[in-house]
Every structure is written in C-alpha cells, then in structure tokens.
C-alpha cells in the first residue's frame, strides 16, 4: 500500500514551484506572471506545512513543530498583500499605457 510520505509532498512542491517559475519567466502578460508567482508561493507553503508535519519535535518544544505552519500563514498573508499591490500597479500601468504586456514595458533599460 502506498504511504504518502514527506518525499511526495516535497516533489509536489518542487513541481508546482517549477511550473510557477517557468510561467514567471516566460509569460508576457503581467497578470499571468502574477498568477505564476502565486503558484510559487503556494509551492513553498506545501513544503513548509509538510516538513512541519513530518519533522520530529525538538526538545522543549510542543509535541508538534508548528513553526512551518505559522510560516505558511505568514506567506499567505504577505502574498495577499503582494497581490493587491501588484494588481494596483498593473492597473495603473494599463491606464497609462493601454497594455499589460511586459514586452512593451522596457523603460528601465540604459
């Protein structure tokens, strides 16, 4: 019988992260890039929670090591904030330039 262990979670996390990375690096639409970044966040969250569940508690700590889960909560919070700021920026850019394609947003070069 297949037991779902830490390895499975970590492999899942890696796959999701890689998909997110690929999306963030290759897509042109700013909104899609934002979504890809969200994927990466969630991949990390999976890894945090899994590791938190499977690692043995250290001496003097509670029976279950909670710091990974707490971290995941923080990441969700920060991701929410990040998403709102990023969407606001994208909206502002769209209003100014009538596009959200990052190929047209190359003002930051030399």
């Amino acid at each position: 019988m297949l037991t779902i262990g830490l390895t499975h979670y970590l492999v899942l996390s890696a796959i999701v992260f890689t998909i997110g990375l690929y999306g963030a690096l290759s897509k042109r639409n700013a909104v899609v890039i934002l979504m890809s970044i969200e994927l990466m966040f969630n991949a990390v969250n999976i890894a945090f929670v899994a590791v938190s569940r499977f690692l043995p508690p250290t001496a003097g700590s509670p029976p279950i090591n909670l710091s990974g889960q707490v971290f995941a909560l923080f990441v969700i919070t920060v991701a929410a904030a990040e998403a709102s700021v990023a969407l606001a920026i994208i909206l502002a850019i769209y209003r100014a330039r009538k596009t959200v394609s990052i190929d047209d947003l190359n003002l930051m070069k030399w």
Partner: protein
Amino acid sequence: MLWLVPALPLLAFVLITAFLRRPQMLAAYVSILAIAISFVISLATLFRGMSAPAGWRVESIVPFFTIGPMRVELSTFVDGLGAVMLVVVTLVSMLVQIYSTGYMVEHGEMDPGFSRFFSYLSLFTCSMLLLVLANNFFQLFVGWELVGLCSYLLVGFWYFKPEAADAAKKAFITTRFGDLGFLIGILFVFAFTQSFSFADVTEAVKSNAIPPTWLTVTMVLLFCGAIGKSAQFPLHVWLPDAMEGPTPVSALIHAATMVAAGVYMVARLFELFESAPTAAAVVAWIGGITAIFAATHGLVMRDIKRVLAYSTVSQLGYMMMALGVGGLAAGTFHLTTHAFFKALLFLGSGSVIHGSGVQDMFFLGGLGRRMPITKWTFLVGSLALAGVFPFAGFWSKDDILSSAFNSGNYALGVIGIVTAFMTAFYIFRAYFLTFSGEPRPDWVDPDVFHGADAPKPMIDVAHADPVAAVAYEPNAYYAATHGPAGDPHAAHAELAHAEAASAHQGAGTEASSAAEHGAAHGGHGHLARGAHLAHESGPAMTLPLVVLAIFATFVGFVGAPQAGNPFGRFVTGETAAEGMNYALAGGTLILALIAIFWAWSWYGRGAFVREPLTALGPVYVMVARRYYLDDLYNWMIGVFILGFSQVLAWFDKNVVDGVVNLVGWITRVIGDAISRTETGREPNYALAVFGGIAVIVFVLLNYAVVR
C-alpha cells in the same frame, strides 16, 4: 626664570596683536617693558655665569612631544656663549625698540602700522631668544624659521611699497634655499644619532657614530643654513635688498637677530665642525670669500644703508672665517662687538635718513653741524668697524686675524687684512660723504654727459641701477601715499621720484640727469627734505645711539689678550689665552689709518664733485652692478627654473592628465558594455536573480560546512 626671557616678548606680541592696536604708544611701552625685563634677567644670568667656575651651564627641559623613538623637548639652555648672546640680543633689541618710538613718528604723526611694528619686533626678539636657548636641533630649527618669518614681515613692513614687498619675498625665498640644506642636515643628524640634542650628537660624533664622510656632508649641509641666514656668498643677495625695511629693522636684523643666527649656529655646533675638518675649511673659505667680496661692494654703493648692508655681509664672512679656522672665541667675540657697532651705525644712518629724508650719500654732506650727536656716535661706530684702537672692532678683528695666522691659514689671513683695509676705507667714505663738507642737494653727476652726440658713458650703466641712483626716502614715500589728503608737496615729491626711477632704468643720458635733478629737488617738498634742511633727531633716537656708542668704545676690552681675554675664556671655557700679536695688530691698525686718510683725501678734504672710483671704469661698473650676480640669478631662474617648469608642465599635461583621462575612458567603455545587459525586460532580471540563487544554493549544498 630663564624661560621668561623669550616668553615675555611673546606675551607682548600676543597682547599687542590682540588688544593694543590703539593707543599705539601703549603698544610700544608694553613691548619695551617686556624686553627690558628680559634684558635684566639675561644680564643677571650672565653675571651668575661669570662668577661661576669654568664649564658653567644651566639647562632645563620641558617635553614637547614624542613620536615613536623621537623625543622632542623645549629647552632653556645657557652656557657662556648663550649667556653672551642673550644679553646682546635683548640689549640691542631694547635699544632698537626705544629708538623706534622716535623713528616711526614722522612730524608728530605716527606710522599707521606703529603697533603692528612693535608686535613684529617683539616676535622677532622672541624667536631669536628661542633659538639662542635651544639645546637641540628641533628648537633651533623652530627659532630659525621664525626669525625668517619675522624678517619677512618686517622687511616688507611697508608692504604697499613694491620694492619692500619684493625685498621681503627675496629675503624669505633666498634664505629658504639654505634652510633646505639645513633641514636635510638635521635629518641626517637624527638618522645617524637618533637624537636632536646637541649634547647627544656631540657625544655620538666623538665616539665616531657617524662615518667621517657623512659627517662632512652633514656639516656642510648644516652650514648651508648659515649661508642663507647669515647672507654668505653666494646667497648674500637678499641682505642689501632687505634695506627696504624700516631702518630700525635693518639694525635689528644686522646686529642681533636674523643674520646672527647663522653665526651663532656654527658657534654652537663648533665641536661638530671641529670634528669635520673639511667642513670647517668650507666654512672658513666661504667666510673669507664673502668677507672680501662684500667689502668690494661697500666701496661703490651710494645708498648709505647699502654700504652698511654690504659691510654686514663682509663682517659676517669675517666671523665665519674665524669659526672655520678654529677661532670660536674670536668669531663669537666679533659677533658681539659687531652687534654693538653695527647697530650703532644703522641707527645712526636711520637718524640721518629721518633727519634729512635722503639716503643717497652723494646728495648728503655737511650733516655734522646739523646732527652733532649722530655725527659723533657714527664716528665712533665707524672707528670701531674700521678696527682703530681702542674701539671694539680693533680687538675682535685682531683676534680673528691672529687666529687665522695661528692656525696656518695664511691665505685667509691675507684676505682678512685686505678686507680690513677696504672696510676702513668704505666706512669712512660713507662718513665723510655724509657728515663733512657742505650739503649737496643739487648735486649733478658730472659723468652724465649732456647733448645727443655725447659719447655714451660707461658710468650710465652703473647709475641705471635704480636703487643706487635714486635718493629714495621711505618716509617721504610713506607720507605721499598715506599722508593726509591735500598735501600736494609730498605728492609732487613722490612723482619726481617715480620719474627719476623710470628714467634711470631707461639709461637715457639727458633725461636721466634731468630726472635726477628733479629727484633731488623733489626733496624740497613739504615733508621730503634735503641734507641742507636736516635736523638732529629727538632724544628717543639719540639716547640709544649714545648707549651703543659707549658699548662700541669699551666692549672690546673684555676680549683684550693683555687682560687674559676674559670673554674668550668665558665663552669657550678654556683657560689658556693667546698673547697679542703686536706686529699684526700694529700693522692692521696702520693700514686702517692709511685707509681712513685715503678716504678723507678723496671725500672729506675738498668739495665732493665726482666719485673718484669711477676712474676704474668697467671694474667700477661691474662692482656697482653687484658683479651681475642678481642678473645671473635672474637668468638662471629664467633658463633653469622656467625651462624645467615647462618640461614639468608638458609632463603634467600629457602624462599625468593622460593617465587620468585614460582611467576615465576605460570606465566609460566598461560602463557602456555592461549597460547593454540592462535590457529593461523583467524576465531577464528575474532569470538572473533565480540563476544567482541557484548558484548560491548549489555552492551551499556542496561546500557549506556541515555542523
């Protein structure tokens, strides 16, 4: 107590500079009071030293600073030599300051820089005392540079006069050439002995810590300082120009401070020079050459102060010669006596200038009746300088000549005798031209021909020397530039002077004589005067003259061989005294009297019409142009310094700037290349960030230390 000696003048300087710009007379009193107390302390020290056994010395030290192994101390160090110098410096300085309260007041109007003048005088004295009290090279050098600074300030005291400003710069820069050698010498001494203290260095030299060759080099370098400071050949050129300063300053520089510093330094380091015979020979020969060389200048100068200036150069050469041949007592004795009679002569000439407003002796004359005190005291000074028995110069000059002959340096001895002859001649030329006969305010040079077809006289070149040719009056100039407005006479006199100066430089024959006439007449203005209007100076000026005259008469006896030369024993600490060489003394005395008679027959007997020395023709011109040394220096500066500067300028423009530009160019090119990576596309940046993280993770996983 001894530290008060330099501290009081310093205090006076600070007080005057900070608080006493007005009232001006108070500044003078503060300054004189400070120096008077210093003088009393010095005198007490001298008497204490004289009653003490031989080898007496007083030394106290305050640590100044420490850098690594180098400990620098401030000292008050006095032995026989130092005590004598202290008294000479403070006494002459005090008399000069008293004199200045008269000299710096023209027709009841004080010089606007009156209190500034006294603050400088105080600083000058303080610097010299600091130098005299040094027991180490460091303090010596500090005092050394300070007197240089003060001479700059005082020579350029009338800084609005271009000549004075130039002379000040010349004095400062010329002595700086010597100071460079002096500084290198001091650093050599420290490199070899790890100490600045005279005692340590002498000890080290006696135990042969310095290789003889290097010792010679070091001593010659140290002597370079004295060449500059004491105006020895070939760096003597600044001293005659330093006459642009007020006359009391000249007296101070020439008698007690500035130029005495070089001689004092050589005397102080006498044992070191003795250990390096080659260096001592250099000292002796430079001294001898300077003595006779400068004396020839004295023969032809027309400006009374310049005669005295070259006389000082010559006498300093005498002292150096004495020290070089091993006559420590003789050299310092002459330094002492010379301080008195040269100060006397300078203050006397100052009195003449103050009373008549004329410096060119050819326009003077007949002042003896109008300025009796000045005349008699000047006569005393002249006799002392000429070396006539029993005046001071006789004893010290004889001491020097006999030490030259006793040491076997016959050539130097003969040079000394010839110099003594010339000295007697030129000082009495000056005396007779100034004080005997009738005033010559309208004197016209008979050698300047009139008419266009007149042969171009050689003499004109000599007279083209604007300094010698123009009867220059600092006080008149001063009044003209700074006097109350609406004083047309003074302004007119000044104008005539300016014309005379420019015409002379042009060396035109007719214009020259006409302008010269104008210059003489210019002296008839309201403030500017002529010899026929001269008056005796006030008591503030005549009192120092009389005091100095007394010293110039009697101070020589303290070094009389018949009395066992108490001066020499006190200064050198040696007990053996040499007897007098009566043949030598008598011979030089007779020579001096012949020279005086000669001077009288040319300049004192009849009315002065023309300079008999012009019969020498080209020789006269050459000497009057100061052997073209100034021209040579100008030429050398033009060719070498400016040429070298141009090479350096090229190097700076092309090589130094080139390197800088190259660096800028490289930076720009690299920046251009790197900026191409900035595409402005976010995915590229993100990829770079991710790539970077990947590398870091890879490295950490493979190489991080696992605990």
